[in-house]
């Protein structure tokens, strides 16, 4: 049904552009408009030139990434996580701005292209009226969204938006970030003024043309403009006065909007493009699978800003300073000089300083690591736990962990590291383990068992258990390894280990940046595994699990691998593990980063605990927001300063808030090592225990299994 009165010609229901403007004034507008577009295009060129100064990288296939990006834009899923109010109001701004932009483009399409070239017109009649309504709704949405963002900045005073830097002190020249705050406000005010003057302009036109029924009778199709027009009429404004007001508003609105467009590539507004691009080219496993380095090249890692890929340089520009990573980072939360946001912003500023001019500065001026202005400090890079809390929550898909690891590779190459870390790496080079133990002592923990674990080097096994360093040598975790061996044995699993020939899998060696040693470890272990016959691998260590699952395939090691928790769940569900009792514990579960965030193994341990009868009370920071124990990224090999809270202590205090907690359940040898200490240092030794999931199973298991599933294989 048409909203139009049929007696009127539909063609006449429209808005006459430049109505009442002399020709020269219309020309002046076009000059300003093309200048703005020129500045915008120049800005885009400068940015693209900057990105192209990074290392090349081919991304394929691009199609799926673009489709993912479109879905994320439409749903705003990544923006709404852990901050739904910000996500929903950004949605209003995004669609408001987007529709208004599309609307203006539609008018340009008709007025400047189709009408003069082909004589085609469509912006009138029904289409025009619906168009007007949609634009008014879009404008209202935009204003509501912007007002909320202003409220959020001014009155919510969120710590994540105060731009306080943990990696700089007030004495540093690059400490001050008040420029960002001013830019934020300028951005919000510019958009609010453009939207509000748009409505006022609409109203002024209505009052000016109130005598024309073709305009006035259809005014409620622009409800916001009509409402303001009603107010203007109520003040007794004359049509001529409204006409003058309209001209003034027209120019103010137009010039402000064009200035905004011209400045997009130079201001935070560019995130409209960079964030979308970043999402379209994001890597599905940025922290789980790190980029392989060419060891024969003359250099390694990212010591200079030009050592980053163009994609990483684009990432630095995609950051919107939303502060979600700042909030999630365990290093930042415990006072270490690292905030993922500030790392990205530091590199952004450094890239702008060095890569924006026509000529590329030489050599040392490109060094991105150091103690100078906008350089990343080594202690910042060493603070990272590679837990990927930042990568997980970043709404625009910035991949911080590979950036940090690439810079660490450069540090290792310069031998710039903690002496303790150097000692550990030397131990791994000579002994194959990080604890400096003799190779021959690796299987010593098996001596306490009353059966012999099969030697997978000597005979075929169904399951090859890759034990890992801490599970082999850490006295506390050796008990867990022994318990797991007894469980497998009693359940009738045909399993074996590599004894002395197992070397550390290398996950954390890679994450501290010793890529050469990592590749050596991966190749050696793959060779060892290649000489054995087995169907699948199991490990209790999430770090080992991650690197064998995600990184070994690049070195030719393709295996079916399972974390112990997944195997336990299956054996419980299938009755392969039979229980003699159920637990009546109240427990909480700590997701290890490498099992949870990096490999999405959130559910098997929880389902296992439920099958054991435990009551699980979740901590506030759980699953994808789990708070790292502090050991990841090789930090277990570096001493934490004694004047700061350790991440593990922060976590223990969180767990201690659970009433009647019996057991803090861990699922990783390194978490166990961290939390056993933290439980004592936070005075929770008497309140609850730290136990492995495996130990809970061991407590309930009926070891005298006869027949049934246990009969599948010889139990020795």
């Amino acid at each position, binding site marked *: 049904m048409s909203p139009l009165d049929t007696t009127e010609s539909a063609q006449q229901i429209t808005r006459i552009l430049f109505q009442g403007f002399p020709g020269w004034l219309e020309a002046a507008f076009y000059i300003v408009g093309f200048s703005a577009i020129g500045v915008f295009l120049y800005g885009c060129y400068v940015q693209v030139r900057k990105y192209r100064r990074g290392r090349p990288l081919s991304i394929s296939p691009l199609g799926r990434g673009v489709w993912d990006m479109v879905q994320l834009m439409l749903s705003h899923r990544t923006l709404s996580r852990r901050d739904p109010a910000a996500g929903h109001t950004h949605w209003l701004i995004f669609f408001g701005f987007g529709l208004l932009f599309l609307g203006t483009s539609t008018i340009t399409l008709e007025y400047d292209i189709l009408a003069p070239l082909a004589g085609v017109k469509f912006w009138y009649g029904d289409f025009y009226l619906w168009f007007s309504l949609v634009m008014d709704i879009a404008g209202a949405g935009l204003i509501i969204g912007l007002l909320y963002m202003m409220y959020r900045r001014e009155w919510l005073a969120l710590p994540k938006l105060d731009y306080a830097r943990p990696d700089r002190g007030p004495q540093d020249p690059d400490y001050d970030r008040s420029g960002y705050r001013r830019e934020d406000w300028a951005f919000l005010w510019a958009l609010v003024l453009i939207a509000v003057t748009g409505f006022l302009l609409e109203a002024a036109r209505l009052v000016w043309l109130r005598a024309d029924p073709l305009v006035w009778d259809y005014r409620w199709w622009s409800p916001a403009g009509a409402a303001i027009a009603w107010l203007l009429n109520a003040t007794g404004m004359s049509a001529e006065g409204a006409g003058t007001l309209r001209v003034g508003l027209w120019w103010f609105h137009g010039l402000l909007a064009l200035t905004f467009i011209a400045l997009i590539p130079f201001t935070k507004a560019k995130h409209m493009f960079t964030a979308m691009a970043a999402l379209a080219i994001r890597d599905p496993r940025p922290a789980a699978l790190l980029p392989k380095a060419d060891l024969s090249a003359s250099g390694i890692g990212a010591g200079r800003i030009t050592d980053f890929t163009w994609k990483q340089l684009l990432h630095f520009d995609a950051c919107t300073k939303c502060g979600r990573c700042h909030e999630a980072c365990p290093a930042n939360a415990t006072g270490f000089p690292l905030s993922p946001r500030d790392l990205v912003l530091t590199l952004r500023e450094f890239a702008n300083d060095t890569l924006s001019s026509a000529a590329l500065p030489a050599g040392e001026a490109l060094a991105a690591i150091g103690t100078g202005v906008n350089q990343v400090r080594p202690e910042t890079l060493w603070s990272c736990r590679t837990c990927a809390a930042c990568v997980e929550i970043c709404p625009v898909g910035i991949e911080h962990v590979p950036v940090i690891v690439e810079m660490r590779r450069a540090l*290792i*190459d310069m*031998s710039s590291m903690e002496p303790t870390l150097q000692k550990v790496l030397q131990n791994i080079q000579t002994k194959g383990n990080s604890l400096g133990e003799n190779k021959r002592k690796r299987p010593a923990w098996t001596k306490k068992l009353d059966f012999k674990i099969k030697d997978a080097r000597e005979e075929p096994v169904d399951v090859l258990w890759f034990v890992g360093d801490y599970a082999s040598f850490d006295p506390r975790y050796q008990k867990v390894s022994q318990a797991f061996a007894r469980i497998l044995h009693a359940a009738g699993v045909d399993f074996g280990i590599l004894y002395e020939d197992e070397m550390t899998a290398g996950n954390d060696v890679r994450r501290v940046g010793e890529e*050469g*040693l990592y590749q*050596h470890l991966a190749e050696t272990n793959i060779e060892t595994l290649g000489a054995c016959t087995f169907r699948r691998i199991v490990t209790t260590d999430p770090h080992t699990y991650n690197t064998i699952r995600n990184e070994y395939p690049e070195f030719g090691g393709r295996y079916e691998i399972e974390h112990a928790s997944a195997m336990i769940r299956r054996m419980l569900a299938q009755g392969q593990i039979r229980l003699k009792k159920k637990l009546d514990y109240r427990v909480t579960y700590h997701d290890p980063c490498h099992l949870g965030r990096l490999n999405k193994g959130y559910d098997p341990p929880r389902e296992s605990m439920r099958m054991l009868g435990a009551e699980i009370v979740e901590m506030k920071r759980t699953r994808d927001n789990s708070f790292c124990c502090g050991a990841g990224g090789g930090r277990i090999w570096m001493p934490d300063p004694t004047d700061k809270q350790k991440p593990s202590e922060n976590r223990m205090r969180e767990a201690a808030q659970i009433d009647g907690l019996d057991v803090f359940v861990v699922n990783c040898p390194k978490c166990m090592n961290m939390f056993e200490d933290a439980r004592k240092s936070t005075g929770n030794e008497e309140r609850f225990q730290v136990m492995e999931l495996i130990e809970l199973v061991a407590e309930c298991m009926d070891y005298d299994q006869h027949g049934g599933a246990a009969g599948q294989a010889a139990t020795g």
Partner: protein
Amino acid sequence: MKILVPVKQVAVLDEDFELRDDGLDADPDFIDHESNEWDDYSYEAALQIMEAHGGVEVVPMTVGPEDAEESLRRCLAKGGERAIRVWDDALTGAGPATVAKLIAAVARREGADMVFAGTLSADHSYAMTGICVAAELGWPHVAVVTALEYQPGAATATVHRELEAGLVEKMTVECPAVLTIQLGINQPRYASLRGVKQAKEKPVDELSPADLGVSGEELAASASFRLRRMFKPARGQAELIEGTAAEQAARLASIIKELRGAA
């Protein structure tokens, strides 16, 4: 200007080891090898001089079998362009004076201006080799150097030696000289595995004593001592006293009484 840095690949024994049948060494089954820790510091000292001044060459060398090349590669991974390895199977079990004779021969052949050795080696702990090199060359020497000021080409070097109770001795030594370097003089850099792999491209000259003009008789004559036997001392017995404080005290008292009774 050239600094020669003799390094050694040392033996690391297992906690539980057995002796070789002839009783002159540990059973090789219980031995791992690694670079001597002191040599990390002497090599670092040489590299720092090389990096601070132009025209300085640092040459690492070792007297040892093929396996010992690993230690030279680790040096070359950190810096330096070539290395020298001296060996002949007859040198198996050679003592410090014999090894020193060969190091001195290399120093002469290379025209070295300084020799930086480690104070001692972690396995045999003779602390003799560097000093013997000085004797062979007729150069002055300073042992256990904890700080070093040296300008390449200068007539003297100023060194610190740390003595008992933290007393520091500052002395000037005429160059060329042999310095044996103590742990802690610097912070040795890390040899990344990538660096070690790339160092495989760098040349290691392999020389025999004959190449250096040292005859078998001279080597035999240089032995300053003969190893007669290695043995494990009898292990002391320790007892961990467990139980309540009262039980522990009672057990301790009975041990004391027992010992007094035996005396």
